[in-house]
């Protein structure tokens, strides 16, 4: 099982703050798996080039590997400060 978190604009668009699923593979594959399970809207939203992915709270690329127990987060560009 992995935990997937969504923040800010993305959390609102998907109407989802957190979900858990069985997945092992890379980040690009996780996007595809989420689109398959949750529908095409998710695929479109998560496919946006601007979306940042973090694995265990460190920014990760599309080819980074996700394994059981990981915390994966998707979020838009940050705007703090």
């Amino acid at each position, binding site marked *: 099982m992995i935990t997937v978190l969504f*923040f800010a604009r993305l959390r609102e668009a998907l109407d989802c703050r957190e979900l858990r699923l069985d997945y092992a593979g890379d980040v690009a594959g996780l996007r595809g798996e989420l689109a398959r399970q949750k529908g095409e809207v998710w695929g479109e939203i998560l496919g946006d080039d601007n979306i940042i992915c973090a694995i265990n*709270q460190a920014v990760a690329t599309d080819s980074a590997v996700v394994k059981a127990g990981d915390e994966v*987060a998707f979020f838009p*560009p*940050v705007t*703090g400060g």
Partner: protein
Amino acid sequence: MQISVRVQHEDFNVADESRRLSSTASGAIVQFIGVMRERNDGDQVALMELEHYPGMTESSIRRIIDTAGQRWTLQGVTVIHRVGEIRPGEQIVLVAVAAAHRGEAFAACEFVMDYLKCEAPFWKKERLADGSSRWVDSRESDTQARQRWSQPEPNG
């Protein structure tokens, strides 16, 4: 190097934070204070909601401070970032740096702020005077401000 990173709902007092940093060893303290503006992109903003990614926020700020500590000789760095509801005129963020020499304190403070703007997972949502809400977009100028630091320095 004395490091303090806080993400909190409550306001902060910059005099207390300056005092906490000013051990008798350090001669220079530079503080950046971000204050919420009443207007943004031409609109009157009534309220701002600041969301963050607990855990990653703190670790990303610590990473930025560590990088600054490798680049300059610093005695202390304090970063406080508020989350939750903030109103115009209220303080949002504090970056305070103590060093023996003011040039280093200025540079490190600006560096931490420029990186925080681009790397720390905070998101601002504005509620306008008419009741509508909108997420604030990231700025190209912030990315540029950060990129400056990876270029060779002009004169040391």
